C-alpha cells in the first residue's frame, strides 16, 4: 500500500480565492493510499517546504503530490525538497490547480471540484511512480568538426585550444572554404586571405587537431559523448606522407585547361593540382575525371597515357593505384559547419521546388557572373591579378550592373528567405570596382538595403555617397545580349521610370543555399533540416547552435545565411558548448527515457521507424550457447529524449517511457 502525502497550496490568494483548499486536502485525504493531506498558505516558501520534508520523515511517505502551480514553475523545487527529505525525487509530482484551475474559473464550487479531480489523477498516477536515477554516460573528450571553412576552422581551434582533441574533416583538397576565395571583406576592407591563412596554418600545426582534408563523413553511429564516425579519405593519387608540396607535378601536367573551382570557373588549373597556392594541406590531388591516365584506364586502355607527374616527382609520392580508405574516429561531440553554395540561375536545378531565371537567359549570357566570380576578379590572387576584366573578351567593363536578391526573397523561384550577406558584398563590390576602374559606373538594383550590423550601414552609405555607386530601387525584368553589350531592362520604382542600361558586365547576387548533400549528412546525424536544406537549430532563440540531436552542434552558413562574423561567433559558441560538455568525464541525463521489455517485444520495429532520434536499436537475444533466440528492440538511453512516440506505436506495449508509463497514465485516466 502506498503512503502518499498531499500538499495543497493556497499560493496566497491565488489559488485559495477560488478553490477551497481545505476541502481539496480533505477530499484527497480520503483517497486510498493517502496517509497525510494538508493545505498551507505558501507551499513553495521555506516553511512550506519544511512541512513537506517533515511529513516525508514523519509519515514515511513514498509519494508526494503537491497541488499548486504549474509543474513548469515548481516541479524542480519540490523534487529537490523531497530529495533532501531522503526519497527519490521522481516520487514527487505536481497537480496544476493554479494555471489550470483557480486562475481560469470563478465558480468556487466548480473550481474546487476540478482541483480535487486534478489532484486525484496525480495521486493515482504517483502510486505507479518508481524511483529513477540519473543516467550517467561516459564522454569521449574529442570532437569532430565537419567542414573546414572559417566556421569549422574557428570551432576546431577553439576546442583544441581548450585542451581537447579535434578531428577536422573537409571534403575539398584544402581547408579555407569560401572565405579563401574572397578578395576583401566588408565592412573593413581587410584582405580575406591575410586574416584567414594564418588560421589555416594554425590548424595544420596544432598538436591537438587531426586534419583530414579531401575526406567525407561516411557513417555516424552512437550518441552524445560516444559517437563512432567513419570517415572516407578520398584517394588523392598522391601519397601525403611523401609529398613535400614542391609543385613540380603541376608544372608538367599536360592538361592545364580545367576550369578552376577556386577561381569560380574563371581561371584554369591542371589535372593534378592544389586549389590555391596557400592551400592547407599543400598536397596536390589528381582530378581523376580529367586526368589522361585515369580516363584511359576507365576505357581499359592497354597502356597508361601519361605519367609525367610520376616521372617528375623526386619523392616518388605519386600513387595512381591509391584507393579510398575508411577511418573510424571516436568522438564525443560533432560540429556541422558545411557552409553554403551559391544558387545558380540555370534552367536545371537540383531541387524541384527551385527554378532558374529564364528572363536572364538561364545563365547563358556571357559576362553575367555571380558574386563569387566577381570576388575572384577583384582578388590579387585571382585569374586577372586583381584587375576587373570581363571574362568574355578581357576588356575593362565601364558599366557594371549589380543585381541583388537573385533567387533570394522570391518564393516564385523557391527561395523565400533573405540571403543576408548580399547587400553588404554588393556595396563592397561597387567600392572595389570604383577603386579599380576609374570612370567606371556601378549601378545596383536593390529591393531593400539590409545593412544591419556594426559599421554596416555606414559602409553602404560610403559606397553610395563616396564611391559613386548608383543605387536603383527596383527589379530587372529582362536582360539579353546585344552585340558587345548586355541590355538590362529594369524599373526604378522610386521615380517610376523604366531603366534601359547597356551594361558591359552584370553581377548577380545569387542566393546562398546549403551545400549539396546536406540532407544526406543531416540524416546520418539524425538532425532535422528545413525545406531549403538548412540545418534546424534546437531553439531559434535560446539554443541557436545546438541541434535536436544531443551532442551535435551547428555553426555557420549551413544553418542559415551567415556572414563571417556570425559564422565565427557561432563556431566559438559551439566550441564553448562542447568544452562545457567535455568538462566532466561523465554526463548526467534525466532518466525519463524509454525502456523495452525484451520478453514481450516481437521485433516488428515500428519503434525504430518512428523514433525521431534513431535511439532504438536492434538487439539480439541469445541463449547461453550463443544461439540467436530473437531480435528485439533496445533503446539507447544516451540518445532517447523521452517523447514516447515509440510506446504509442508499439502494438504489444512492450516499450515503456519512464515517468509516463502506461500504468501511470492508465491510473490517471481511471481516476476520471
Amino acid at each position, binding site marked *: 500500500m502506498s503512503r502518499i502525502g498531499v500538499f495543497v497550496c493556497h499560493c496566497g490568494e491565488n489559488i485559495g480565492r477560488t478553490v477551497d483548499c481545505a476541502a481539496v486536502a480533505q477530499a484527497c485525504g480520503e483517497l486510498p493510499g493517502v496517509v497525510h493531506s494538508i493545505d498551507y498558505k505558501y507551499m513553495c516558501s521555506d516553511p512550506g517546504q519544511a512541512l513537506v520534508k517533515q511529513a516525508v520523515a514523519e509519515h514515511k511517505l513514498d509519494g508526494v503530490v503537491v497541488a499548486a502551480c504549474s509543474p513548469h514553475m515548481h516541479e524542480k523545487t519540490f523534487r529537490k525538497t523531497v530529495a533532501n527529505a531522503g526519497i527519490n525525487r521522481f516520487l514527487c509530482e505536481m497537480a496544476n490547480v493554479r494555471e489550470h484551475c483557480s486562475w481560469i474559473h470563478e465558480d468556487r464550487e466548480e473550481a474546487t471540484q476540478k482541483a480535487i479531480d486534478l489532484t486525484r489523477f496525480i495521486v493515482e498516477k504517483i502510486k505507479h511512480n518508481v524511483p529513477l536515477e540519473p543516467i550517467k554516460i561516459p564522454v569521449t573528450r574529442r570532437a569532430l568538426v565537419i567542414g573546414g571553412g572559417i566556421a569549422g576552422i574557428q570551432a576546431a581551434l577553439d576546442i583544441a585550444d581548450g585542451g581537447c582533441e579535434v578531428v577536422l574533416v573537409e571534403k575539398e583538397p584544402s581547408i579555407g572554404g569560401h572565405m579563401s576565395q574572397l578578395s576583401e571583406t566588408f565592412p573593413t576592407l581587410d584582405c580575406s586571405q591575410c586574416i584567414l591563412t594564418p588560421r589555416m596554418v594554425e590548424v595544420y600545426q596544432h598538436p591537438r587537431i587531426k586534419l583530414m582534408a579531401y575526406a567525407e563523413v561516411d557513417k555516424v553511429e552512437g550518441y552524445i559523448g560516444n559517437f563512432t564516425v567513419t570517415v572516407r579519405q578520398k584517394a588523392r593519387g598522391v601519397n601525403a606522407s611523401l609529398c613535400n608540396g614542391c609543385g613540380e607535378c603541376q608544372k608538367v601536367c599536360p592538361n592545364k585547361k580545367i576550369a578552376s573551382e577556386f577561381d569560380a570557373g574563371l581561371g584554369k588549373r591542371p589535372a593534378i593540382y592544389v586549389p590555391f597556392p596557400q592551400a592547407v594541406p599543400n598536397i596536390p590531388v589528381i582530378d581523376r575525371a580529367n586526368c589522361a591516365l585515369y580516363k584511359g584506364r576507365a576505357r581499359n586502355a592497354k597502356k597508361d597515357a601519361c605519367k609525367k607527374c610520376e616521372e617528375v616527382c623526386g619523392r616518388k609520392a605519386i600513387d595512381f593505384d591509391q584507393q579510398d580508405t575508411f577511418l573510424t574516429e571516436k568522438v564525443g561531440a560533432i560540429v556541422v559547419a558545411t557552409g553554403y553554395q551559391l544558387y545558380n540561375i540555370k534552367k536545371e536545378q537540383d531541387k524541384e521546388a527551385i527554378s532558374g531565371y529564364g528572363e536572364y537567359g538561364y545563365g547563358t549570357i556571357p559576362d553575367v557572373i555571380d558574386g563569387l566570380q566577381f570576388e575572384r576578379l577583384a582578388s590579387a590572387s585571382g585569374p586577372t591579378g586583381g584587375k576587373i576584366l570581363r571574362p568574355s573578351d578581357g576588356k575593362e567593363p565601364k558599366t557594371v550592373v549589380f543585381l541583388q536578391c537573385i533567387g533570394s526573397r522570391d518564393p516564385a523561384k523557391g527561395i523565400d528567405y533573405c540571403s543576408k550577406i548580399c547587400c553588404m558584398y554588393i556595396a563592397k563590390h561597387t567600392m572595389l570596382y570604383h577603386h579599380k576602374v576609374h570612370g567606371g559606373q556601378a549601378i545596383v538594383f536593390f529591393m531593400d538595403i539590409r545593412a544591419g550590423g556594426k559599421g554596416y550601414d555606414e559602409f553602404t552609405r560610403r559606397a553610395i555617397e563616396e564611391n559613386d555607386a548608383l543605387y536603383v530601387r527596383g527589379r530587372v525584368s529582362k536582360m539579353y545580349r546585344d552585340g558587345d553589350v548586355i541590355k538590362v531592362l529594369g524599373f526604378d520604382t522610386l521615380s517610376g521610370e523604366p531603366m534601359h542600361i547597356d551594361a558591359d558586365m552584370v553581377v548577380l547576387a545569387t542566393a546562398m543555399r546549403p551545400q549539396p548533400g546536406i540532407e544526406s549528412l543531416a540524416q546520418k546525424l539524425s538532425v532535422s533540416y528545413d525545406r531549403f536544406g538548412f540545418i534546424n537549430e534546437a531553439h531559434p532563440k535560446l539554443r541557436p547552435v545546438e541541434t*535536436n540531436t544531443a551532442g551535435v552542434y551547428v555553426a555557420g552558413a549551413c544553418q542559415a545565411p551567415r556572414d563571417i562574423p556570425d559564422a565565427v561567433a557561432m563556431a566559438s559558441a559551439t566550441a564553448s558548448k562542447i568544452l562545457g560538455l567535455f568538462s566532466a568525464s561523465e554526463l548526467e541525463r534525466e532518466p525519463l527515457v524509454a525502456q523495452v521489455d525484451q520478453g514481450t517485444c516481437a521485433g516488428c520495429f515500428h519503434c525504430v521507424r518512428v523514433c525521431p532520434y534513431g535511439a532504438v536499436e536492434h538487439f539480439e537475444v541469445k541463449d547461453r550457447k550463443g544461439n540467436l533466440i530473437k531480435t528485439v528492440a533496445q533503446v539507447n538511453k544516451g540518445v532517447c529524449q523521452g517523447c*514516447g512516440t515509440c*510506446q*504509442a506505436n508499439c502494438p504489444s506495449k512492450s516499450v515503456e517511457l519512464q515517468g509516463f508509463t502506461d500504468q501511470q497514465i492508465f491510473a490517471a*485516466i481511471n481516476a476520471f
Partner: protein
Amino acid sequence: MAAKTSTDKASFKPRIAAFVCNWCTYTGADLAGTSRLQMAPNVRIIRLPCTGRIDPLFIIKAFERGADGVIVSGCHPADCHYTSGNYHARRRFAVARDVFGFMGIDPKRITFSWVSASEGGKWAEVVNDTTARVQELGPFSAYREMEARV
C-alpha cells in the same frame, strides 16, 4: 468515481478529458492561466511529453471511464519539441477518428488541435468550443450504459 450524470440536458455538465503535450499545449494552457482567461470548468488535463505518446487507447479508456468528450492537443507542425512526434500523432489520429466514428463514436466528441505555448487564447477557445459542442450532444451515456446490455 464518475459522478452520476443526469440525462437532463440543462443540468448536464460535460466531463472532458484533455491529453496534451508538455511543451506546447500544456504551456499554452499555463499561459491562459497567467492571462486569467476565463473558460469552462469541464476539462481535465492529463499531461504527456508529446502527442506522439498519446495512444488511441487513452481516448477509448477515457470514454469508458465516463468522459463525454476528449481533447487531444499538441504542437503545431514543425514546432514539435521532439521534431516529429506530432506528425506521427497526426496520422494515427486521422485513422483513429475515422475508425471510432465508423464504430459509432460521434467525431464531434473528440477535438484535435494544435495549440502552441503562446496560444493561451486558442486554448480557451478549444476548451469552450468543445464544452459547448459536447453540451449540445448530451452525455455519452451509451458508453457507460454498455454494461446494462449484457
